[in-house]
């Protein structure tokens, strides 16, 4: 009898912890969706791409350091002085960059935890002018993306992170912002065990956008 009661109280305690943990997970999913649904309120204006990428890189770096003790990564900037300005919605593109950069951090740190031997996490942010378009690249030296994951990684709620660590919305939202809102493109180049590089291309002029910013 007592054993049964002990078991039950132990179970209830564990279940309450799970309720809290999964409640937090649901909370972050809802927050992400709300952020996304607020899109369109942001006006498009000419923004200096190099400054935007640099700011996002700093923001992501300090965010990661605040969140995780002992976080260390080598950051490289490879900015094209001719990148110039692009008509874009800065809040939205910043979100995309934060997503891509923090994914890169995550991948590099994960690999560091796995290999240890002289591996140094590194992330490169680069820009390049393509005339009437501008390219932004975020490259990490983490473990890369497996082929079967690559097919699905832009799907909403798809995540490879353990429960509670990712909502599976980051890349899906990034895709929407770049492709649907800004009429740009995003693609990934990766080598499992070597690197992952996301390449976003944005048209300079907002008129090129089909969807506009008013969904």
């Amino acid at each position, binding site marked *: 009898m007592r054993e049964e009661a002990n078991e039950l109280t132990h179970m209830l305690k564990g*279940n309450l912890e799970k309720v809290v943990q*999964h409640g937090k997970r649901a909370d972050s999913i809802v927050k992400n969706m709300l952020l996304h649904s607020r899109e369109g309120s942001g006006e498009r204006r000419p923004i200096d791409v190099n400054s935007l990428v640099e700011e996002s890189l700093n923001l992501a770096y300090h965010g990661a350091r605040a969140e995780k003790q002992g976080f260390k990564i080598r950051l490289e900037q490879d900015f094209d002085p001719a990148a110039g300005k692009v008509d874009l919605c800065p809040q939205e593109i910043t979100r995309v960059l934060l997503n891509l950069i923090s994914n890169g951090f995550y991948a590099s740190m994960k690999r560091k935890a796995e290999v240890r031997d002289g591996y140094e996490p590194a992330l490169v942010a680069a820009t390049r002018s393509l005339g009437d378009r501008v390219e932004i690249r975020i490259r990490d030296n983490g473990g890369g993306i497996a082929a079967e994951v690559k097919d*699905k990684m832009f799907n909403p709620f*798809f995540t*490879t992170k353990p*429960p509670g660590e990712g909502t599976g919305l980051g890349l899906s939202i990034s895709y929407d912002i770049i492709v649907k809102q800004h009429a740009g493109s995003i693609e990934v180049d990766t080598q499992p065990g070597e690197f992952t590089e996301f390449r976003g291309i944005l048209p300079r002029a907002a008129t090129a956008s089909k969807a506009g910013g008013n969904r």
Partner: protein
Amino acid sequence: MSLLVLVVDDESDVEMLFRQQFRRDLRAGRFTMDFAQSADRALQRISDAEGASLILILSDINMPGMSGLELLPKAKALRPDVPVIMITAYGDDQTKRKALEGGAETLLTKPIDFVALRNEIDSRVAVAGQ
């Protein structure tokens, strides 16, 4: 010989939940449960259990890597005799049709109705025990 139910779900807390819900059956040794957190690992377990007393496979659909719907024909190819029940949050008609066409016994939706699931398991246990 003990009877085995294999549960496939990428959510690790599923194991805790199932072990809780079926704790009395597990303790009484009516059957055992094994848990695989990916379709790949599930296939491994199914091959390892060859000839053994695997009586039922319960599989989630939305998982990183191979999905439950992709796992279904592979599991059936390995063990045509073992019924597979899909358990998913997406109970729409299309998913249901795909699951049934792929050879699933039935599809249960999340949140899991443990009374219904217990009935499914009990009927398999009864058949296997004969």
